[in-house]
Structures are given as C-alpha cells and as structure tokens.
C-alpha cells in the first residue's frame, strides 16, 4: 500500500510518501494511523493527534473510521485550506 503525506504531516514524517505493508489486524484508516505512529519519532509526532488528521483512500476523501478494503493509495493530511 502506498501512503502519501501532505503539509505538516509530510514535514513531520520527513517524507512525502512511502510503501508500507500493514499487518492483518489493520483494517481502518484509524488503525493504519496508529500503526504508522510506531515507525519513527517523526511518524509519532505526525500522528500524535489523530483528530487533527484527514484522509483519502484512492483519492477520495474518507472519514478516519473508513475500512481500508483494497486501498492502493492512502493519503493522510491536515484539514484542507485551499481557495
């Protein structure tokens, strides 16, 4: 699964994307966030407050409790601020 990071999530993680292979128990976006938080201190800083995060699966916005299903691309980022 490809995971993409944007804005301060990207900065804290220290990378814009990575390929990960989460274990079988990781079934929702929230599960994935909790699992990613253990990968490094940068990840821990990025994912310390999940309520500040938003997500997209395969380029569609989803809530954090959305199932990952057969997601190929999951993006994690702060609330959007365009326009």
């Amino acid at each position: 699964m490809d995971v993409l990071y944007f804005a301060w999530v990207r900065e804290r993680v220290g990378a814009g994307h990575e390929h990960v292979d989460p274990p079988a128990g990781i079934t929702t976006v929230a599960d994935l966030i909790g699992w990613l938080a253990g990968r490094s201190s940068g990840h821990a800083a990025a994912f310390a407050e999940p309520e500040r995060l938003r997500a997209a699966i395969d380029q569609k916005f989803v809530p954090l409790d959305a199932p990952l299903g057969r997601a190929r691309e999951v993006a994690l980022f702060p609330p959007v601020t365009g326009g």
Partner: protein
Amino acid sequence: MIRIAVAPEPIDLAAELAAIEAGGAGGIASFTGLVRADDGVTELELEHYPGMTEAALTELAESATQRWSLLGATIIHRVGRMRPGERIVFVATAALHRREALDACAFLIDRLKTGAPFWKRERRGEDAAWVEAKVSDDAAAGRWGA
C-alpha cells in the same frame, strides 16, 4: 464547458473570462481569491495532491452543472509560491440568467475551500506556518446542503 486547471503559473484572468464568455451566456459570475497584503504575509505557498486535486475540482464543477443550468464552469487554482496581491484561485460560471451564475459561483468557491486537497503555508519573513482550517469554511460549504 468545464475547465479545470491547477498550475504554478499566474492566473490569466482576461484569457479565462474571454473563454467562458465565448459560450453564449447572458451572465458570467466570477470570484478571484488573492494573497492578502494586509497581514504581514511575505509569501504564500500552496501544496496540493496531484491527481486527486484535478479529480476533486472536476467533480465539484460537475455537481454545479447538475444543480444549475450552466453554460460553463471554470476553476483555476494556482499552486507553489506566490506573493501578496497575486491570484490564488479563480472560479467563474456562465448561465443564461444571472441568478444561476451568481449562486453557482458562490457554491463553487464555498465548496472548494473544504472539498479540494490544497494546503496553504504562509511565510512572514523568516517564519513559516501552515494555515489552520476555518470552522466558518465548513459552515459556508454546508449552506449548500449535501
């Protein structure tokens, strides 16, 4: 009749307006968002999610054309670095009658604020800070229903 662009180049308003005017409309409504020059910002940086951005803006424009009788809908969003006074975003809608163009234009900019993957970072001299999302933007996007 739908035109979407996400690019680092400055937005050419005259060209965009001429293009949407060519569709035979009676009225064109537009909104241009500018980097505000009043609050000490020296540079604004716009990050986005390539691929998803264009898809989200296309979907947004399509939802406007389903809701109102539009002859045209344009959404242009600049990305990368820009300075105070420069254009960040331009939306325009064309319709036979003004009310449809005006309402659809307000809808597009309200929804764009919360429904497209862009993130702003402001620089003030040496300091850089990501802009926090506004609760008022969620409220404005919600005015238009589901």
